[in-house]
């Protein structure tokens, strides 16, 4: 026994190191290549990265913004985890997010006139979740009935949704009092309450609770297990008697609903209104985040913080240092490529080791 135990612990340490490397190496490579591109463009990458950390993490104001930004990222990540674990590519996040945001922005100022704040916020969130879920219905049904690739259909619905959200803002819910088309604003006092006198709204608490619940649902419940089986092997799932079609629709609705909740919380917590042509385009941005966390709802919290720092710091850097925010987008693309590459090399290593 003692002879067997020794290599086992060694293996375990090695596995742990490998797990850390699988995450750290792609991040470092992406930052390095991104830095090289900055250098070519005549900007000092160290200044840029230093500024991003300084602004996004180490300054109190920036840190509060970072925490605030984490809320939508986490909720979208929760939505993507549900879908990806079930083997479904819901890439329609932007449309689902924006439509949900518009529904909240349209409802909230009207409801607050007659209802108490808590009820208003709750109704807005539920309505947004429902609308976002409904927006995913066509791709879900096409996938479930005819096996039509959901990547394409959800993307198409996303483009459709972003334009439709604009139509709603400009033609139906426009506040006549403003020159720039936007919906009526929800007063700051009526928005989601702040946490302990900070500027961080309580949406982050909702997001943390949701992402942990989603993680527990996916790993500890029968429903989550069913989804994972569908994701791992749809043919086996059919043989096991699972209603794959129904599960596909349910997964899509849940995934889109969570992304919708992100849109609703962002409006109720931060903006109070939707301006025309507003589109933060988090939908694809969160994809690498979820992959980095290997679809793990707990790990995703740390990566959401990392992304959030990058975004808040990057936004500030674009104003101060003159490196546009698009740099972060490119960094995310690089990150995804290196992630896939490192994953693949790791796969080769395991294969060679015979594990």
């Amino acid at each position, binding site marked *: 026994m003692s002879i067997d135990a020794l290599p086992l612990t060694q293996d375990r340490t090695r596995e742990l190191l490998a797990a850390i490397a699988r995450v750290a190496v792609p991040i470092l490579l992406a930052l390095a290549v991104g830095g090289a*591109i900055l250098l070519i*463009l*005549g900007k000092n990458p160290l200044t840029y990265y230093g500024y991003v950390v300084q602004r996004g993490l180490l300054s109190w104001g920036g840190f509060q913004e970072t925490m605030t930004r984490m809320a939508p990222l986490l909720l979208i990540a929760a939505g993507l985890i549900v879908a990806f674990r079930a083997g479904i*590519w819901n*890439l329609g996040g932007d449309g689902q997010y924006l439509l949900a945001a518009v529904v909240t922005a349209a409802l909230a100022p009207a409801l607050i006139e007659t209802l108490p704040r808590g009820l208003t916020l709750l109704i807005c969130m539920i309505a947004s979740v429902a609308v976002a879920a409904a927006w995913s219905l*066509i791709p879900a049904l*096409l996938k479930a*009935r*005819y096996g*039509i*690739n959901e*990547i*394409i*259909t959800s*993307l*198409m*619905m996303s*483009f*459709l949704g972003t*334009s*439709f959200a*604009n*139509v709603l803002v*400009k*033609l139906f819910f426009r506040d006549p009092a403003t020159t720039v088309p936007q919906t009526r604003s929800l007063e700051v006092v009526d928005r989601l309450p702040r946490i302990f006198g900070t500027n961080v709204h309580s949406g982050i608490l909702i997001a943390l609770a949701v992402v942990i619940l989603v993680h527990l649902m996916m790993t500890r419940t029968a429903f989550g297990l069913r989804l994972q089986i569908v994701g791992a092997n749809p043919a086996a799932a059919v043989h096991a008697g699972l209603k794959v079609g129904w599960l596909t629709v349910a997964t899509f609705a849940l995934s889109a609903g969570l992304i919708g909740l992100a849109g609703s919380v962002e409006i109720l917590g931060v903006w109070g209104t939707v301006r025309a042509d507003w589109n933060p385009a988090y939908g*694809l*941005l969160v*994809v*690498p985040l979820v*992959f980095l966390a290997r679809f793990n709802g707990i790990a995703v919290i740390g990566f959401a913080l990392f992304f959030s720092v990058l975004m808040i710091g990057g936004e500030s850097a674009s104003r101060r240092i003159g*490196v*546009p925010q*698009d*740099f*972060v*987008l*490119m*960094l*995310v*693309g*690089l*990150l*995804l*490529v290196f*992630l*896939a*590459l490192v994953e*693949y090399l790791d796969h080769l290593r395991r294969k060679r080791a015979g594990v």
Partner: protein
Amino acid sequence: MSELLTQPFLISLLFGAVTAGVPLLLAGLGEQISEKAGVLNIGIEGMMLFGAYTGFVAAYYSGSFWMGFLAGGLGGMLVASVVVLLCIRQGLNQIVIGIALTIGAEGLTALLHFFQFSKTYPRLDKAPVLEIPGLASIPVIGPALFSHNIVVYLAVGLVVFLGWLFRASYVGLNLEAAGAKPAALDAAGISVVATRSMAVLSTGFLAGLGGAYLANVGAGLFVPFMTHGAGFIGIVLAMLARGRPVWVLLGAILFGVSLAMTTALQVAGVNVPTDVVQMLPFAMVMLVLVIFARHSVLPPALGLPYVRGDR
């Protein structure tokens, strides 16, 4: 309604439909080649956008539209070569890399554009037009269909060429085998990796050319994120065309018309909000998918890396 069907309206609609449809056609044909060979090329949006950027920059600095088109095609190929290296040769997940390339190209082109032109959007001169002798003087149809940039005629010629290639050449058979039963192609002594690599590089060239046309001829300038899903529409076209280039052409015309509606309606003096019109092509895609969902066919080995001896 009758005053809508005036000559200027019709010319504007048809001309616009061709201009808007050609990038979709090139992307759709390109994607079709990849899909035939069993590669789901989600990164085509990124290839198109990068081609639009390199094509515009080359045309802007050289003053030659030919250089622009060439650079656009090569730019698309450059992005496609990443797919070849990572997905075809190493078997990495085509969807993940595709998304990464699209996001990466969006960020990179916006970044490069910013550092070159800051927040200005310089315009190119009007693209040269080749009027087909005789046909171009037919009223309405002449100016609408037969006085376009040469790329338009090349793209339509490509439909015929690919139709022949897929149906009656060994290259076409090899492509189809690479998508339907790669092991059989391998057994016949032809490299699956090489076949797929050629297919993806061709896709990259066509998508990049489509992007360059979009920027240099369609818009006359480069704006970050300007492809706005055109590459993805190309994927839909390829999906619905069931391997037949003619259907890609018909689909491209359909979506071209819905894209051209905005300007045509403005010419006619009807003021429709742009957002409503922007929904049209995507709504059209969804409608077509819902109606023809049962008929879309994809090769069995689509999206799967080929590993010799692997079951």
